[in-house]
């Protein structure tokens, strides 16, 4: 027995020493690592600012900062940008960074055969010129106020012509970290770039590990296998992290709105009484407490509290099961009516489905739950519109416009709303805009095309000794350039 114990002790980690490595948890694995050839947020979460850099960059506050462009000037007409480039930046493959690279990168992104996910960002560029290797002049076809911000996106990073074709599996940039290895399905490893042009990274090595399962994520954090989980998938486990001095819990907000989308092309969801009944039948507070562990604010329409023109409509449909039952009876829905709720993988949907099914049971609706993977969900719900109801977070900021679309997966087709939205787009006065935004929200609340539930919190958990992590995520990124361990 003693020998077994001794053997077990041998297997324990060696004593603690000054740590300069980091392992970061992510829910989804990137499909590949070429940020200029795919929209997946996971690509950015690994590579942005760590491996690839653009002329400008976006920092933790969402502000524009110089990156590979040291400085810039803008012509008075807002159409010509002159960038002064870093003189000593070198790609991980040895290629020197100069204006030729900028021209190559922008031309490639804007080209007809470009696979860039944000190709429209480059549409404004009329030409990119190199008066000398350290200067780039970009001429726009029309003034674009957001140009410097746009060029800070992951999609606008600088690519070495030599390695452009192989970035999917072996990403090469100018950043403070170099790609080391990718064990598919498990991890991507980066190491510090000793030849970085700027202040060198404080971490010597970084591992991104892909842990989709909330349970496994919790266990891995608690066991110290992971040092940080910036988008933590298990809000239900937060209490124990908060109570544990080893961890920092950071709750920020996103532009995400969690809703139960209803397919109005299917009976009986075309009936306003049924949609309202569902709204009365769901207790948002219980949903938020049970599913989001209280992190989230109830919403009354498709709009974030705090955004310009917000009106509080949370009280429009209080939790009143009796009223829900009455409305359902009025609409001719018999107790025992069965509907299917389609659930994509995140906890707000999977766990939320159980909570909502239990609440619907109280008003005589039997909700069948259909969990599915993202690929399947996108196909069945988002493309084919073949579903009854689904739980989903819309993460785009200020997206009231999606209810004015000709065709969208919840099939809300309302001419009045569309007319209102046209009016809003045409409005120029801030006061008129705010008024119309309010009208749009009220219209949505009155029609209740979907059941509006809650805001989507951004929850991050990391080791309390870790410094320099982003508290909010203005762009999808895990910028580790200034992350370090406190003593």
């Amino acid at each position, binding site marked *: 027995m003693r020998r077994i114990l001794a053997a*077990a002790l041998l297997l*324990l980690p060696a004593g603690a020493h000054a740590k300069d490595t980091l392992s970061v948890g992510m829910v989804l694995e990137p499909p*590949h690592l070429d940020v200029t050839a795919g929209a997946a947020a996971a690509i950015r979460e690994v590579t942005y600012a760590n491996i690839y850099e653009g002329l400008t960059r976006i920092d933790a506050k969402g502000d524009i900062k110089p990156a590979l462009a040291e400085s810039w000037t803008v012509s008075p007409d807002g159409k010509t940008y002159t960038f002064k480039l870093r003189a000593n930046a070198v790609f991980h493959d040895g290629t020197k960074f100069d204006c030729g690279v900028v021209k190559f990168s922008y031309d490639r992104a804007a080209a007809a055969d470009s696979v860039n996910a944000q190709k429209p960002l480059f549409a404004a560029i009329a030409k990119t010129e190199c008066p000398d290797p350290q200067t780039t002049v970009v001429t726009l076809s029309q003034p674009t106020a957001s140009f410097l911000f746009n060029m800070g996106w992951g999609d606008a990073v600088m690519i070495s012509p030599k390695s452009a074709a192989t970035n999917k599996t072996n990403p090469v940039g100018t950043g403070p970290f170099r790609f080391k290895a990718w064990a*598919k399905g*498990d991890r991507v490893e980066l190491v510090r770039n000793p030849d970085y042009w700027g202040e060198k990274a404080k971490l010597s090595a970084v591992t991104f590990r892909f842990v989709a399962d909330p349970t496994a994520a919790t266990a*891995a954090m*608690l066991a110290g*296998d*992971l040092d940080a989980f910036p988008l933590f998938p298990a809000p239900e486990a937060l209490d124990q992290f908060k109570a544990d001095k080893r961890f920092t819990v950071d709750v920020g907000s996103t532009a995400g709105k969690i809703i139960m989308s209803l397919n109005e092309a299917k009976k009986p969801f075309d009936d306003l009484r049924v949609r309202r009944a569902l709204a009365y039948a769901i207790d948002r507070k219980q949903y938020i407490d049970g599913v989001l562990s209280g992190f989230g604010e109830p919403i009354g329409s498709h709009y974030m509290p705090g955004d310009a023109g917000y009106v509080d409509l949370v009280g429009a449909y209080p939790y009143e099961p009796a009223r829900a039952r009455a409305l359902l009876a009025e609409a001719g829905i018999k107790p025992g009516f069965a509907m299917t709720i389609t659930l994509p993988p995140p906890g707000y949907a999977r766990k939320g489905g159980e909570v909502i099914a239990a609440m619907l049971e109280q008003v005589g609706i039997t909700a069948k739950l259909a969990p599915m993977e993202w690929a*399947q969900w996108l196909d069945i719900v988002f493309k084919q519109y073949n579903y009854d109801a689904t739980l989903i977070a819309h993460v785009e900021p200020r997206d009231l416009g999606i209810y004015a679309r000709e065709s969208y997966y919840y099939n809300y087709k309302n001419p009045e709303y569309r007319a209102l939205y046209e009016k809003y787009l045409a409005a120029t006065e801030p006061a008129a805009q705010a008024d119309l935004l309010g009208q749009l929200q009220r219209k949505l609340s009155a029609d209740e095309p979907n059941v509006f539930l809650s805001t989507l919190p951004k929850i991050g958990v990391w080791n309390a000794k870790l410094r320099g992590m982003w508290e909010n995520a203005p762009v999808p990124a895990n910028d580790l350039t200034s992350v370090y361990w406190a003593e």
Partner: protein
Amino acid sequence: MGFDQPPFWRYLAWVGRFALGDLGTSYTYSVPVSELIGERAGVSIPLALMAITLSTAIAIPVGVAAAAWRGRPADAGIMGVTQIGVAMPNFWLGILLVLLFSVRLAWFPASGFAGWGGGVLQGLRSLLLPALALALPQAAILSRVTRSAVLETLGEDYVRTARAKGLGPAAALWRHAVPNALIPVVTILGLQFSFLLAGTVIIENVFTLPGLGRLMFQAIAQRDLIVVQDLVVLLAGSVIVVNFAVDLLYAALDPRLRHRGAA
């Protein structure tokens, strides 16, 4: 990709390439499937081997001890514990091990695989709990088999003759009963291999190990059918190979067959 071909021809083409050792290209990762499987096998095979080793190392001494103590309270105790071991689902055992060794004692990682890059010891350490979770229920079955096999050989004529000639009980046990009891034990071990493979699928999910089982789940989730097909055929093939190996081992262990071979 040949998607314009009818499905049956695509299937035939797959069979043909597979037979030639070309496993095709993963739809999700756009890398050769053989590469993916190679990476993952570096976790699953050591895990399965470790589990088999642990299971045998635990089961044979326990089974022999139970046989030696037949009818005594120790025997009854061992048999009771093994009954419970047989009934325990390995993934629950895995959770209990995490609860004890990762949560309470923090001796072992709760999940994930350290990789072989940090040394063999590091890699083995992250496989120990999952291997134990796999091994213990199998060990319970195996020790029951060992016990009854040893009891059976102890009752056979040649052992009784040896005892009558003055061979001590311990010597009779170790020199005659145990070696002969190994035959059914090896047979069961071979049968267990298939259970073990299936077990790794679930256990890899409990401990989030990047092995073949998780690859299977991911491939299914992504509808990466070529990976699924390849994996199923490879796993079934390995079961057949192991069973064949067991047959060979069986021949080597069975003295009657051995003598026939020597003659």
